[in-house]
């Protein structure tokens, strides 16, 4: 079972994913190290979200191997696969909060299903998570439709963190937020990552988040990882798409003065 190296939490090898005749991911390989924040960038529609959803098992793959925390879902039993799913948290792009439950019930939902806790402890933990993501416990009474965009993201993050995951998957965490909220959200993820010691796999377009948060960046182009490494390494890449991405006008925030 434990075939991956100990410090690699996600190992993807020769992954092929496609829809119909189209091959979205074509022989992609990627390693994510324990405790790092990895940012994945790429063309719109180029398969970033597809890669994330394939790793968490929402999209079937055609070929290749995915080992997450030492578990290969192809060979693992159903119980092992379920146990694995409890060890990661996912923040979907639109939050995906259950609209019929309050925010607190949303956070308690995974706890209720997976852990045996007293109601009191569950309430206290839910409040703790709410405060950790910068919401107030009174926000727990609200329904998802009553939240603003930034609050929705925070509430969804609190739910993703409900079971203290070892890996956190983020799909465009700052999309739809104003630059200030986005910056705060970036800082929040960074702080939580340091206190709770999880690994972050983040799909993003936000150049600023890439620079502020990520330990490493992976650039996805033509269905493969075109460049991977620290910001300065990826910026140096000679791949044409990566070059235009990081040397465009909008990328100046990141390439200018690497301090």
């Amino acid at each position: 079972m434990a075939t991956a190296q100990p410090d690699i939490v996600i190992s993807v090898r020769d992954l092929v994913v496609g829809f119909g005749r189209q091959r979205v991911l074509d022989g992609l390989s990627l390693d994510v190290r324990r405790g790092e924040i990895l940012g994945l960038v790429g063309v719109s529609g180029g398969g970033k979200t597809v890669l994330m959803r394939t790793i968490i098992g929402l999209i079937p793959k055609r070929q290749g191997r995915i080992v997450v925390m030492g578990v290969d879902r192809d060979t693992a039993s159903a119980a092992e696969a379920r146990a694995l799913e409890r060890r990661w948290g996912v923040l979907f792009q639109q939050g995906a909060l259950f609209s019929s439950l309050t925010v607190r019930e949303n956070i308690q939902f995974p706890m209720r299903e997976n852990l045996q806790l007293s109601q009191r402890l569950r309430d206290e933990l839910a409040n703790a998570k709410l405060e950790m993501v910068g919401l107030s416990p009174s926000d727990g009474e609200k329904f998802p439709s009553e939240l603003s965009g930034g609050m929705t993201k925070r509430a969804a993050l609190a739910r993703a963190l409900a079971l203290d995951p070892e890996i956190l998957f983020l799909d465009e965490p700052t999309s739809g937020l104003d630059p200030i909220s986005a910056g705060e959200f970036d800082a929040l993820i960074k702080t939580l990552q340091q206190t709770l010691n999880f690994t972050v796999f983040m799909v993003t377009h936000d150049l600023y988040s890439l620079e502020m948060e990520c330990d490493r960046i992976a650039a996805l182009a033509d269905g493969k990882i075109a460049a991977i490494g620290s910001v300065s390494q990826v910026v140096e890449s000679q791949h044409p798409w990566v070059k235009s991405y990081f040397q465009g006008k909008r990328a100046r925030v990141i390439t200018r003065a690497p301090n």
Partner: protein
Amino acid sequence: MAADSALTCTATGDLLELTPGGAWTAAQSAALEARMSEVAPQVSGARKLTINMGRVRELDTLGAWLLERLIRGCADRKVDVELVALPDRYRGLFDQIGRVNREAVAVPAAKNKLLAALEQVGQWAVELIPEFETFLAMLAAASFALGRVLMRPRSFRIISAVNHLYRVGWQAIPIMLMITFLIGAIIAQQGIFHLRKFGADAYVVDMVGILVLRELGVLIVSIMVAGRSGSAYTAELGSMKMREEIDALRMMGFDPVEVLILPRIVALVVALPILAFIGSMSALVGGGIVAWFYGGMSPEIYIARMHEAISVTHFKVGMIKAPFMALMIGLVACSEGLRVKGSAESLGLQTTNSVVKSIFLVIVLDGIFAIFFASIGM
């Protein structure tokens, strides 16, 4: 992953030393909660407390919170607590946990159940007023839109109206035929069965004819239309509202009532009388077939008796009601559709509301018409 959790407790004089060990994580939650309550009596008796974190292998929010809760409990009783040998990697987590749950969350006081129920009834009654207002507002908006369209007939969305007519009229014909046929057959069967006791089974023709033409034909068809087309109108308009399509339309200078609602209501007002007519005929046929096979009355006699039993007045009474029923269903369905708010849940709620209200109002309207026709002697 079968890591074990432990909590050992050693007392030396006034000093109590707690040594948590193993995994203090969410996966061990049940065991951890039990251990914490086991040591609770000893902790509450202690004067001085030391928590030795040296043996903890894993710690997450849950474990940290359980310890933090213990520490806070002791602090409230003015008991000294010392946290020793805390690994550096967990210091940040403890700092973070130390900041949360500081403020008590106000729990709303429970109300008297009876009072709450009475209050709810009152709420419903009060909410009826804005609902009636919305209905009137929709009627007014649709009338104004109709007025504008009559002044400029070219602005009428004829293609949209025809499309809706096809959907609520033409496509509804099979199911209407089926239902009304069965209703007619059931009435005839019941009539024959019970009237036979008096030797009056021939009068079943009067019963079927009058009942179907005056009341049931239009009523059954209206209820079916409310369920079939009214709900579709509400769901369509509601999802357009949710996706801001209606706002977009308004911003482009179009009147949503004129573009979306008027063609739908017009289609319904045209379709429902046709369906009611088809349905009534189908019910008469259903009654005739049962009279033939179950009551032994040949079709010739059935038609001849029908000729004597019913007059064109009965037919008129039924058909006059149809466009009003259609108008009612259309207005309710469209106003409920526009009341949909952001969530998918509200869409479902308003669609249910639309169907329930329009069926209710259709029956009420039928009652009003019955009184009206009786008083003018029709």
